[in-house]
């Protein structure tokens, strides 16, 4: 299997197969990450697509870190931008009441336990959710998260610990973890 960075180089040169390989390898985890940060699966798909579009236009001189981490950084920044845009224009109450059909989340996460985990993660504060998502889904190191979020590494580790601790307690309350 060709290395991710090499795949990207080939894709920049116009290799459609390499580009498709790269997309299939990373698109699902990117959707999980962006959906988790924004709380919307639809937005997660849009942002994952947008991340790949950005990837095509970015010029990389040195391959530092893992490709997954690099791609997660692009997606994280887009997700953060989208979340702040959404926070400044929240949907109206009437729109929330009117929508009683299964949510895209319910359609996307079909396993009950998985849906509970997603909802528990969503119930965390934004700061805790971001770090947990970047670490567990984005696969980033604590150093990378600190650099990306501008939060000291000690705080990153502390937030990660409390995020997981809170999640475990909520999962126990819901009977998922024992």
């Amino acid at each position, binding site marked *: 299997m060709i290395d991710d960075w090499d795949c990207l180089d080939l894709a920049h040169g116009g290799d459609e197969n390499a580009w498709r390989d790269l997309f299939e390898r990373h698109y699902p985890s990117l959707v*999980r990450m962006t959906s988790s940060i924004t709380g919307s699966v639809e937005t997660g798909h849009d942002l994952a697509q947008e991340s790949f579009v950005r990837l095509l236009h970015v010029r990389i001189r040195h391959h530092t870190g893992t490709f997954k981490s690099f791609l997660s950084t692009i997606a994280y920044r887009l997700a953060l931008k989208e979340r702040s845009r959404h926070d400044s224009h929240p949907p109206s109450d009437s729109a929330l009441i009117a929508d009683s059909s299964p949510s895209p989340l319910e359609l996307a996460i079909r396993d009950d336990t998985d849906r509970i985990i997603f909802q528990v993660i969503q119930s965390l504060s934004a700061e805790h959710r971001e770090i947990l998502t970047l670490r567990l889904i984005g696969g980033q190191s604590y150093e990378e998260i600190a650099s990306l979020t501008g939060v000291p590494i000690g705080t990153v580790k502390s937030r990660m*610990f409390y995020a997981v*601790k809170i999640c475990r307690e909520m999962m126990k309350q819901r009977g998922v973890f024992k």
Partner: protein
Amino acid sequence: MTHPDADTLLKFVLQTLDESEGSSVAEHLAVCVRCGDLHQKLLGEVTRLGQVGFHIDLPAPPGIPRRSRLPLAVSRWAAVLAIGFLMGYLTAQLSDPVRPVVIQQRLIPTRAEVSSSGFVSCQAIDATTSP
């Protein structure tokens, strides 16, 4: 080492302990079955949190844009040369010599301008001439 508490084990799983504390927990886990079991349980739970199963219908990847046939370096040099030519042309246009107009003011009246009474006429005696 005494048995580490659940929080310390969770920090160990999350790799947030400092190096010395982490290595002493690792040593303890190698000999303590009870803590080893709890460690495995925490490891499984943390891993599970990061593995929410999404049903994702993989869409088509975004299309690769067609690139210019010219290599980037050639395109850059062409742009630099074009800007250079443009700047040269504009500089040449702006520095085109124009014959200056010199305005002289004669302070000493000519003989004809002096009246017979010896007074000088107050009419303008400025004149514009070429050098």
